[in-house]
């Protein structure tokens, strides 16, 4: 790994540790899909995106929309790590009065570009951001992270159709393809596969990568930058619960928080 990848890896590990701490403190929330997306989100915030914690409403900033809003802990960990708010506040996640809501809230949390949580909304709003950016001849880019289960929502495909139709090459989607949803494996609950062919047929440039390989993530994001005339969808194969042995590939860790003992074990593994 080169220096850039090494610093992303350090950030990603710290973010995973924060995710465990936050969820243990909240006693509820979504560890599996937060951990699966940590390498992707770390790469976006610590290499790819143009954002400035000192001016959170900077009009020229790149936008990030967490369409899979239940993975809020990974976003909050990245924003705190980036300096949008103090890391100590992460432990207030989901507590009454906290600005860190169970799902991202743009009115409350510095650095959150769009409130999400209801699946499908995020990518659709991202299309609006990308259209507005193009209308104003701004060169900011819009990144949106989707769940693979989220791709069962009809709204995702309405948005996919519009982005393809409008040829939004300033929009990049990433599917966190961890293969699991609340009720089981996505291919058993209601398969959205073949995801690559679906996105291609909606007019997107599709890149398939290993979502835990920094070189692959960086390469795909670079390819998206030079892809003109269509939006890019990066389908990132990931492991749900990545980094914590007993959470990896376990459906049960979609929406359950670790207790203190489990959190201690997870943090030991993430040393």
């Amino acid at each position, binding site marked *: 790994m080169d220096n850039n990848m090494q610093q992303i890896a350090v950030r990603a590990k710290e973010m995973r540790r924060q995710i465990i701490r936050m969820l243990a403190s909240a006693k509820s929330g979504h560890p599996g899909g937060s951990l699966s997306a940590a390498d992707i989100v770390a790469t976006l915030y610590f290499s790819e995106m143009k954002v400035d914690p000192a001016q959170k409403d900077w009009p020229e900033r790149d936008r990030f929309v967490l369409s899979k809003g239940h993975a809020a802990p990974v976003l909050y960990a990245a924003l705190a790590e980036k300096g949008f708010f103090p890391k100590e506040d992460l432990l207030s996640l989901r507590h009454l009065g906290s600005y860190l809501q169970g799902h991202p809230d743009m009115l409350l949390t510095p650095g959150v570009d*769009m409130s999400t949580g209801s699946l499908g*909304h995020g990518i*659709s709003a991202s299309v*609006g951001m990308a259209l*507005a950016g193009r209308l104003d001849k701004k060169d900011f880019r819009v990144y949106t992270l989707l769940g693979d289960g989220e791709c069962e929502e009809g*709204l995702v495909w309405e*948005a996919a159709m*519009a982005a393809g139709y409008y040829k939004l090459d300033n929009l990049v989607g990433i599917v966190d393809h961890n293969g699991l949803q609340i009720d089981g494996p996505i291919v058993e609950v209601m398969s959205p596969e073949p995801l690559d062919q679906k996105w291609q047929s909606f007019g997107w440039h599709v890149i398939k990568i290993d979502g835990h390989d920094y070189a692959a993530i960086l390469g795909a994001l670079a390819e998206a930058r030079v892809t003109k005339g269509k939006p890019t969808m990066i389908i990132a194969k990931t492991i749900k619960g990545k980094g914590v042995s007993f959470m990896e590939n376990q459906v049960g860790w979609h929406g359950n928080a670790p207790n203190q003992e489990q959190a201690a074990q997870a943090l030991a593994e993430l040393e």
Partner: protein
Amino acid sequence: MTKIATRTAYGQALVKLGEQNPDIVVLDADLSKSTKTADFQKKFPDRFFNIGIAEANMMCIAAGMATTGKVPFASTFAIFATGRAFEQVRNSIAHTELNVKIAATHAGISVGEDGGSHQTVEDVAIMRVLPNMTVIVPADAIETASAVEVASKMHGPVYIRLGRLDVPVVLPEDYQFVLGKAVIMREGWDAAVFANGLMVAKALEAAEQLAAQGIEIAVVNVSTIKPIDKATIIEVARRAGAVVTAEEHSIIGGLGSAVAEVLAENEPTPMVRVGIQDTFGESGNPEALLEKYGLTAAKISEAVQKVMQNKK
């Protein structure tokens, strides 16, 4: 009497406002000729987005545009804006307090021949219950033009309910809509009628009929349903001692309910609600439908006489 559909006034207002404010963008869902946003498209093709038959997507795209400082007007039929796309409006526009204006046409049973599937009788109820949402039901073309301008200049989500049918112009040319202000259009204190939308014209007609019988009523145009003008409603109810509400909407959840909520807590007053009686509409000529569903001046007059018997 001049008759103009409020949707027509909306289309013209958008063009005028589009010239003044370059941040205004307009979205439609394949109904631009009916909603009249096609007027804006002709003039500002770059700022018009036809999202196709995908109302949910249209609402979230409008929300995304609003995050960058645009002032999006999203239009489709009221049934789709508030029914099909309800959860997108709720979570991506109202919960986020984004600056999206939802201008929905073809509300109510005056849609006519398209029938019950397209005649929303519940849109005001489901928009009114959303925190952060402003709800406006203009009475005529003049008020529509003014309300659309006011909506474009205020921050936050607004629902504007518009109609397909040509309706009488009841307000003077120089009328200025004031958000949250109910307007007393006629005085008379035997009873008061609170109306909005096309029922304002019917209420004024009823007032004429009643005056001929020696009954003098107040007619109040409650075009802003939310925030509702509590002070005017309480004051008018206190003076009149008996009230009727009249709306082209279900009597559940709309103007009738809003007025009842204000009065029950502040000035309990005998009341009768004229409106759609918890039923869906059907195909037919708009005027014939208004007649069949009791949305007429005669029904308002009848309601006034009934409620006056209950005056204390």
